[in-house]
């Protein structure tokens, strides 16, 4: 039984890991999808490089949000300062749960934002002057990642150790 009761810190760290790797994976997929479309445009018209690069970077924010939550979690549980706090199983699981939203939403929204970005890159290829509008469609997807981030941050900071 005793080993189970020591696992609090492990759950907490698992939470940070989930936030970083799921959201990061989402961004990697999204940036990858958008990058393929961007490369296609640049082969035809290298002058659009700056615009399509911005579009490609849009799905990259989920990874940053994941990192953000991961970092807050790490500093919360004291792993960054050296001395890890004594964390009960309940608290550990609470932290794990708190990290879930940004991880899962980050993964899914990252992928779909990437697809939307790829489509928006299509707009830029044909109508470069519509940059403002094209940028908006991927930004719509990101809203949900931001909402998830918000809940994750609020939960992590609210959990008392």
């Amino acid at each position: 039984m005793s080993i189970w009761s020591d696992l609090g810190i492990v759950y907490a760290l698992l939470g940070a890991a989930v936030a970083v790797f799921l959201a990061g994976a989402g961004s990697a997929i999204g940036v990858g999808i958008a990058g393929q479309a961007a490369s296609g445009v640049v082969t035809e018209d290298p002058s659009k490089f700056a615009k399509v690069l911005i579009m490609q970077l849009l799905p990259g924010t989920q990874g940053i949000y994941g990192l953000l939550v991961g970092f807050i979690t790490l500093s919360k549980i004291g792993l960054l300062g050296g001395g890890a706090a004594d964390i009960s199983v309940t608290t550990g699981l609470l932290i794990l749960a708190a990290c879930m939203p940004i991880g899962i939403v980050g993964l899914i929204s990252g992928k779909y934002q990437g697809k939307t970005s790829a489509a928006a890159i299509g707009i830029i290829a044909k109508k470069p002057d519509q940059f403002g509008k094209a940028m908006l469609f991927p930004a719509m997807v990101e809203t949900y990642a931001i909402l998830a981030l918000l809940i994750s941050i609020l939960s992590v900071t609210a959990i008392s150790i």
Partner: protein
Amino acid sequence: MAVLQMQRISICALKKDRKAILEKVQSMGAIEINHVVEDDEAFGRMDTMNARQSFDKKAQLADQALAVLGTYAPEKSSMLSSLEGKRLVEQEMFSKAAANKEKIIATANRLVGCNKEIAESKANILKLENQIESLTPWLALDVPMNHPGTDNVAMLVGMMPGELTLEGIYAEIAKQNPELDAVDVHIIASDRDAVYLTVFCLKAEEDAVEEALRSAGFARPSQVTDKIPAQLKAELEAEILKLNKKIEKKETEIAGCADRREELKLISDYFRIRSEKYEVLGTLPQSQRTFIMSGYTTAEAVPAVLKAVGDKYDCVIDVEDLKEDEEPPTVLKNNSFSSSVEGVVASYGLPHKGEFDPTTIMSFFYVFFFGLMLSDAAYGAIMAIVCFVLLRKYPRMSEGMHKSIKMFMFCGISTLFWGVLFGGYFGDVIPVFSEKFFGTAVNIKELWFVPLNDPMRLLIYSMLFGVIHLFIGLGIKGYMCLKDGKVLDFFCDVVLWYAFLTGLILMLLPSDIFASIAQAEIQFPPAVNTLAKALAIIGAVGLLLMSGRSSKNPALRIALGAYDLYNITGWLSDVLSYSRLLALGLATGVIASVVNQMASMIGSGVIGVIAFVIVFIVGHTLNMAINLLGAYVHTNRLQFVEFFSKFYEGGGKPFEPFHSDTKYVDIKEETL
């Protein structure tokens, strides 16, 4: 802060002044040509297609010549040269170039011709090199490849696939035709794919020998020359050398024309302007002696046109207000601060006819929100300084670019302001660095509070800013309703919503949910609580009854009202959307502190400081770039989606006046 008033201006003048008036109007660039006159017998139109095409072609020729010059005599340009904008040239210089146009076009022709010759020579060299390559295996052969042999002996030249040895070939011949024995095979060369050989045999048996070899895969070479291969190779190489010399000569000839670049630019623009002029000329209705030009212009440009055209030439100028059904182009005019975000408004869509110009109000919120999202004093200072220096250094950059850079400068100042309030200077670099290298942590006190320590507080403020932003949007809608005299619409669509939302907010503030979020309880006197309930109920009932007022059917009307009431969820999600102000602000600060932490982990002493500086520069550059992008995208989004959806449609046409649309230079206006 407004959309400029447009007027229709029509000029009717004598044909003898046509050229002069057209050129004057073009150089002023104040009129967007738009004709209302239908074709009839009195008025005809000139066909200017051919003239335009020839001008376009010449402009293109000059562009091509410039491209050629750019390849062989590149112009020195820095990374920021795209910011420099078009050079201003004197009218006199431009006229001089125009007078010399034949000569300059001849130069352009020569440059393009040189380039073509170079391309042809390069193609020839490639062909010759291929020839040499196919000749290479035969170099050891010291007779011509099509040597006819002697009176009795024939020579066969060819190759066989695979790695064959001399014995193998003899064996192959013997196998195919055992009767042949007067055969002498010489291998000239062999490589992995084939052996190259000459075969001597009796003339009488030539066909039989070739037949035997062929069934073993023998083939004559595709190219046969009547020269000795080595000699031919030398000749080909000499020819390549000659071609290379020619290319070099042409290249120096092109490079020698580098000083003609300016002339070419001028002439390219000259023909571009003329082409545009002829395009307009082609649309002008003309009678035998007169012509008419009509179009939109801003009311404030009218006196200048009257003075420049009306006073100088015999003509009739008619200025009238627009008719009801006309959709004129839109020109915005704002003060120096607000005009910097005009590009953002234009990228959503300019206001259509009669619509309110949101630029001024948006500009304040834009800069405010941008700063809140980036919220690092050092990043803001860098942004503001860089933009300021660029604006100073390149005063002639294009207008749109100038506005954007100015906008980022203001956003940088706002970022600096928020960074100071929140105590973020490159994240937490000052305490981290001082603790690591001096032993004591030096803290810069934040002026307000640190968002990471109290995110709930900033969340509440973000939503408060959001509610203000949205209410102002709704207010503009009300203003527009009143301006159009639609008092009922103003009451039903604006006042009722205000009542409903204010009531709901006042009811929410004293509740437990809000108290737990804000960690502070708000107690209202009972009168306010009653007022809140009354407002919410009046608003809700009013909306339920009035939103569907366009429908006669009472059941449908209530259903539409209920549907409109459901929009409260839209308001909720709009307000929640402002939580991105908090999220993006936190992201900047946290990533900055991750960078600082990484930088401080490496070591101490001199090496530690150097490593710290390297990680610091790379990390913060990345963080600043990505968060700048995020702040820009999401500020735009808050304006476009949340704010504009309350009142703004857009869809106006941009004003595209008939002007000198140049590519390389701007021509200085003649003083009147």
